[in-house]
């Protein structure tokens, strides 16, 4: 039986993309899989009794070394902020290509804590900073220094000791351009070095908390138990900076979604499912309930989604336990059809992610297809005709063409870059100044404009001729020829409407990172947790691949 890939007009809607969950294709999981055989080492740990100073951690294989250089600093409580406008952080990090020399560390000590206003070099690959969850960090120090393990209830409410507030890569602030390292096999997967940074930062937070507790009470202090460490991740606060990324990298977006869709299609096409595979799937679904019940958020929007998710997952478990036979033909296809009929979008995508768990043979080859060289598809095929372009738009943007942009609510917002922080922002064009400096992120509106112009042009006119008098539409002409080849390259929704929920765009990207426990703090920024439940570096050689579903706090 051949199953069709799911329709981009459904999957690429923001509400669906905003319901995606981590899976085996997620970058933090594929990072662990790739680096499990590498030699992990703590090369330097030079902190004072308060936990301030420098540390270096590395992954090494043959002649290749990646080193995380950490700088922990004292900051006052009132200086601590998760906003991107902050200028000081509890700790700052960079991933250095190779073994840093003393001169490198001195240079980085001056630059890394400054973050966006510092300058890195081609020898650095990623850059980040993080703030303590002061409440949790202080509690853990207090407990350990008194010879006790911390309160697990408190830890479970937060899930981490530190939150990163940005992770930069690919040429930002002088970091190495992607092209310098793109041929390295171990990083043939998106954001792999960003994932490495976050993973090593997690270990630094455990080492630092143990160190501070020890110096607070050397005679009595105990170390944080490894099983507790394992159940803690790294938090992250994320704002609108992520949203333009997925619009500005259409072929990359396509390759992420296409990999997910291909995995689902292949799983639905399995005629006979082996007993061990159905057992693993059901076990993961059941164990994952802890991830839902421990998912804390003050956001009413997310609370509602979690409530429906929990209800539907329980309904699904009941269905497969009482009414479903895995020995029937094409069982995962039957499950998928049932999900579409009986459950909410959040639950459909949740179960789709878990369906991948038994199938390394399907997911591992797909991981290799999740990068993209956008430049290869940049040139516009200007020899093509207006008729061809019009056909592409009618076929690929049919829902977009139905939007009436004359209505105020359909173009109420505009995206702009803040002069203060050079970060993307979203505002109401009828209430705020600056819409004349709008960023080219209103793809739906501009595609519609393009179609209106094409309808007035002759069929056999070449695109070169069309562009010579329609230069303002060039950016969307390029996109239309990209979507012709890459069906999942475009969000099939209106990114400037009154009703847009920007965190849907963030969540799409974060789900591919492998984030858990999305906690919206408004409609424009959210907190998440990464690597919660993941193996510690000393366990990487032999770890449980389904660790995501087995957190205990």
């Amino acid at each position, binding site marked *: 039986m051949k199953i069709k890939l799911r329709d981009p007009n459904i999957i690429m809607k923001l509400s669906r993309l905003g319901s995606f969950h981590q899976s085996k294709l997620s970058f933090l999981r594929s990072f662990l899989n790739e680096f499990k055989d590498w030699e992990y080492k703590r090369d330097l740990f030079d902190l004072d009794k308060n936990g301030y100073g420098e540390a270096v951690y590395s992954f090494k294989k043959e002649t290749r070394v990646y080193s995380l250089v950490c700088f922990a600093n004292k900051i006052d409580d009132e200086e601590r902020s998760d906003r991107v406008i902050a200028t000081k952080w509890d700790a700052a990090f960079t991933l250095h290509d190779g073994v840093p020399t003393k001169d490198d560390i001195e240079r980085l000590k001056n630059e890394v804590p400054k973050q966006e206003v510092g300058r890195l*070099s*081609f020898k650095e690959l990623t850059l980040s900073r993080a703030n303590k969850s002061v409440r949790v960090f202080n509690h853990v120090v207090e407990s350990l220094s008194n010879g006790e393990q911390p309160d697990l209830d408190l830890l479970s409410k937060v899930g981490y000791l530190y939150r990163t507030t940005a992770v930069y890569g*690919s*040429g*930002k*602030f*002088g*970091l*190495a*351009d*992607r*092209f310098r390292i793109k041929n390295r096999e171990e990083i043939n997967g998106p954001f792999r070095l960003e994932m490495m940074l976050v993973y090593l930062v997690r270990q630094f937070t455990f080492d630092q908390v143990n160190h501070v507790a020890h110096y607070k009470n050397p005679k009595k202090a105990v170390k944080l138990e490894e099983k507790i460490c394992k159940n803690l991740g790294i938090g992250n606060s994320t704002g609108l900076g992520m949203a333009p990324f997925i619009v500005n990298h259409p072929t990359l977006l396509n390759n992420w979604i296409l990999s997910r869709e291909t995995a689902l299609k292949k799983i639905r096409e399995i005629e006979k499912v082996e007993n061990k595979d159905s057992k693993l799937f059901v076990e993961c679904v059941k164990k994952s309930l802890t991830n839902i019940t421990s998912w804390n958020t003050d956001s009413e929007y997310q609370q509602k989604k979690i409530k429906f998710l929990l209800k539907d997952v329980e309904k699904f478990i009941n269905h497969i336990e009482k009414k479903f036979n895995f020995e029937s033909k094409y069982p995962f296809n039957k499950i998928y059809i049932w999900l579409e009929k009986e459950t909410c979008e959040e639950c459909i995508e949740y179960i789709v992610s878990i369906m991948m768990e038994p199938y390394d043979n399907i997911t591992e080859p797909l991981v290799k297809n999740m990068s993209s060289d956008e*430049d290869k598809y*940049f*040139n*516009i095929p*200007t*020899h093509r005709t207006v008729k061809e372009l019009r056909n592409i738009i009618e076929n690929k943007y049919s829902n977009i063409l139905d939007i009436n942009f004359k209505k105020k609510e359909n173009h109420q917002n505009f995206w702009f*870059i803040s002069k203060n922080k050079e970060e993307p922002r979203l505002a109401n064009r009828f209430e705020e100044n600056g819409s004349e400096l709008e960023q*080219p992120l209103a793809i739906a509106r501009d595609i519609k404009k393009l179609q209106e112009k094409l309808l007035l042009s002759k069929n056999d006119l*070449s*695109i*070169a001729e069309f*562009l*010579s*008098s329609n*230069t*303002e*539409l*060039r*950016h*969307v*002409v*390029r996109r239309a020829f990209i979507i012709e080849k890459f069906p999942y390259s475009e969000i099939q929704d209106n990114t400037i409407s009154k009703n847009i929920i920007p965190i849907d765009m963030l969540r799409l990207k974060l789900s591919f990172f492998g984030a858990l426990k999305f906690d919206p703090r408004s409609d424009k920024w959210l907190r998440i947790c990464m690597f919660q439940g993941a193996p510690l570096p000393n366990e990487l050689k032999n770890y449980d691949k389904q660790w995501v579903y087995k957190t205990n706090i």
Partner: protein
Amino acid sequence: MRSLSEIETTVKRASRAAGFSWGISEEIAKSVRLLELFGLPGIKNLNQYYKDKEVKKFENLNLISKKNLASLKPYCPIILGVSFLDQVRTIEIVKKIKFINVAYPILFLSFLSRASEIIGKKIHIKIDKNEILLNLNVNIYSNLFNQDFLVVASKIEVEFIENQDSFTESDWQSLYKLSESTFVEENDNLKQGAAGAGLTDND
């Protein structure tokens, strides 16, 4: 050192601010990134051009022909470059194209380099007395390294080079003969068995 990613982002924004559409700004960003990658002064010349543009006027050429003459004001190298890029598949049949009076020819150069890749042919350029060879956007070969580029070129000749060998048949035969020394002469036994198909492979 600025990364190419920073260069591309800043050029795109600056070009938009200089009055170009977002789509054209994307083209300029790619082209200046390319110049800097090849070690040519893209940022310096673009910056100077945008300053000049505030006080001087430049002519836009949207349709390229065999001979293109900007008599009063020099051609804008960006609109010229984008037009060339868009029309290269139709104008390559002309073989040789002349442009008279072009501002900041180095900026035009990067678009020509990209055009060379699109049509799969090398492009030879004469800018006044200087010669440049564009090799399918893999590199730019010129005798202008470390020299200041012209602010205005009075004449640019663009010639499409047909794909042909740069060596003689006798050079090739001589080298090929040497390469044959790595081959093994097959005896009857090897002819029979070494390829696996026997002496006849017809059905």
